[in-house]
């Protein structure tokens, strides 16, 4: 648990056993393809207006990412952007266009490392 009271994964130590994803009662932990460094850092399923009030960095389901993506790899599902990792080309275009800065480049090149 980090300083914001949110579960945070140390990617160096993680062995992708999947236990945490199984156990999480909110179902917010997903096993992700480590080679894909473009990630959506939100799982808020509330409608845009509500999500916007709840958090500064929430996905509001605006769909700009979905329209932009050349691979058809990112879609808004239940009001939140989800990346289909096997077809994502990790180009980062969605991370650059996202008005809420929810989509991150884990390498820190297209978006700042938090």
């Amino acid at each position, binding site marked *: 648990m980090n300083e914001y009271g949110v579960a945070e994964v140390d990617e160096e130590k993680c062995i992708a056993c999947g236990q945490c994803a199984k156990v999480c009662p909110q179902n917010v932990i997903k096993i992700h393809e480590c*080679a894909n460094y473009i990630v959506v850092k939100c799982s808020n399923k509330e409608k845009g207006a509500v999500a916007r009030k709840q958090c500064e960095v929430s996905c509001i389901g605006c769909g700009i990412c979905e329209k932009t*993506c*050349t*691979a*058809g*790899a990112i879609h808004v599902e239940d009001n939140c952007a989800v990346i*289909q990792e096997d*077809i994502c*080309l*990790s*180009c*980062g*275009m969605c991370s*650059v266009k996202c008005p809420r800065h929810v989509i991150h480049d884990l*390498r*820190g*090149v*297209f978006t700042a490392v938090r």
Partner: protein
Amino acid sequence: MASFIVNGQEVSPSKNQKLLRFLRDELHITSAKDGCSEGACGACTVIIDGQTCKSCVPDTDSLAGKNVITVEGGLSDWEQKVYTYAYGKAGAVQCGFCIPGMVMCTKALLDVNPEPTDDEIRYALRNNYCRCTGYVKIMDAVRLAAKILKEGVLPDDGDPSWTLGSRVSRIDVEEKVLGTGKYPDDYYPEGMLYGAALRSKYPRARVLSIDTSAAEALPGVEAVVTADDIPGGENKIGHLKHDQYSLIPVGGLTHYLGDAIALVAATDMATVEKAKKLIKVEYEVLPHVHTVEEAAAPDAPLVYDEEETNVCAYKHISRGNAEEAIKNSKYVISHHFETPWTEHAFLEPECAVSFYDEDGDIFVYSTDQSAHQTLHEVTLMLGTDKVKVQNALVGGGFGGKEDMTVQHLSALLTYVTKKPIKMKLSRAESLLVHPKRHPFYMDMTMGCDENGVIQGVKAIVKSDTGAFASLGGPVLERACTHAAGPYHYENFEIEGTAYYTNNPPAGAFRGFGVTQTCFATETLLNMMADKVGITPWEIHYRNAIRPGEVLPNGQIVDNSTGLVETLEAVKEEYDAALAAGKAVGLGCAMKNAGVGVGIPDTGRVKLIVEEDEKLHIFTGASCIGQGLGTVLVQMIVTNTDLSHDDIVYERSNTWISPDSGTTSGSRQTLVTGEACRRACEKFMEAKNSGKSMKDMIGETFYGEYLAKTHPLGADVPNPISHVAYGYATQVCILDPKTGKIEKMIAAHDVGKAVNPLSCEGQIEGGVVMSMGFALREQYPIDENCKPIDKYGSLGLFRSHEVPEIEAIVIDKPGLDVACGAIGIGEITSIPTAPAIADAYCRFDGERRYSLPLSNTPYERKK
């Protein structure tokens, strides 16, 4: 504005823009290529702070303080040598457009991981597309580069032989690896304007009026051109049939969304796009034709005012009596088959740069499959032959660059403005505009005897040739002549119709109709094997054409016919896989070398001794990435006493290089190769008479070869439809655990492999391309005749998805021209889909009759 570092120099862009545009347009760093500007292709890859980045993604404002490296300035001298050596030796460079991006991925990987595993290499390349190589040799190059960097010294290969059969590094490796080689988009003439087309809003509509006044008034716009501005010449051009409108005139009918209505020339692309929006076009929207059924309906809307029906081409071929033979066959199978539209997806989008040269000619830098064809169509449109065309490097074609796209329009804008023009298609335009692979709808019946020997085949095929003829007629013809397969039976009948619709056009694409019909023929033959109770290998072996036998098209095949050898080459692994209980599929194919069927098919080469005392090769044959220049150098080394250092290959142009026909029909190695050999004979006569290179400065040695063939339907008992055929057998082995492809084996008879390394590269690239065709690629078009996908969603295979591919190159002498070299090119893409389809049938028992195959692990989720 942000300041950052590019190749060690501090830079401050004057305005916020995508990094790729800043690199190319302001810094003239052209190794980063504009393949899509959508984040898909990877040709723009650079390294930012040690990480690979597609430079079309970030805005320059976001890069403050960051360190950007490109191939030109970011590699040390040592790295340049290592990568050039490794990529060349491994045979990783074909058209070269993806290569600078791949080199960036290689450096980023090896800088942090000097001894990567195969998986790590695959992953380092997985976001970069290549359409030529199938990634196999690019991975070999990375492995080799890692090894050399570790050892610290370049291997000494001595002085390798360059004669036919040598695996030499291609002549253009260095310029492609270091990014110095120029494709048309890399030219930035002084005072250059940008040109683009306003395209039709509706697939079928009457253009009532065009108001260009607001666009013309926009500052920065130098010209807005409509059909009225086409001087003296013809509005309608076309590769064969002249039905392709350069610009739709007022009162004219639009045929698809790619039809150009007006052209704009302005000082920058932003102004061009603004101007396009200001052009007011009034349309009378009309019902459009979206399918073959709609096109064939009795009261169908006509795609062309000039035509009476929507039939673009019709072919009926019959030899023997197929109906009778099938009636008397023990086993008969009949089925309906469908193959989809697909897109070439070459890495380099179409681009032309044109300007008036010192002779007062319109000079065009072109990426195409024949500079002379480009010259012909540009002069047809302009009504003047004061035009010169020079091939720049071509970033892939596969048939998709045979037709005019930007060349004639760019030339027209230069004619009107008197200024240099660059006209480049965006990737979205490229996907819309150039002709695709025809979708085929086929009904085929095969009859066999109790031993599985084919008695007769009857087929009816329909194709959607879209908005203009392009090469729709010849594709249909080729489908008809090859649908029977490389087998020794006499009773074959096929009826084919190509329909116009308001979809994007369909034309030449590697395989040219045979890729489609072969899927049907091979599937039926594999189904027959089950009926007869033998393996697919065995049924193919029993039916395979052998030297001296007669093909279903009546041609007696010569001694170079090596289909049986390709079958034998795969037998051991095939049997082993079967014995291990794996699902194995097999397919065979034959493909013509040379266009054949009586069409003029001439190769022409001029060998000129220039001031540098070297022999310069001038031929109108375009290299589109297949390595033609290297083939010709090797041909000359074999047929003269020159060393490869004494020979210079010149990219084709139209004022010195003689017309050697289009790079298509897998014809250049054979046809231009033979012309080259004949020129060598003349050169050697002169040399052997005592002349030195110095004595011969300024002399030209000319060779010409007509690949003479009989037209279809010629009144001879055994017509020579093509001068030679290549043959192949491909095998697909599935992994029993994952259901994915474990291995592809591709055995190809090429007569004489000029450069086996290049040959393997063609095989691997063709196999991966047709894996895409078999398993995943589509080009969906919506009901308004608009293509839906972007480059990244076409379904092309990526480096980490490619299975093990074993390429087996087989030499078989017998062809009496071109030193026995038949060549390769299209055939690599033909037997793959039926081999994969059959493997999946053996895996899960489901026979599939259409592509892409359903219910495989590769199937795209909706």
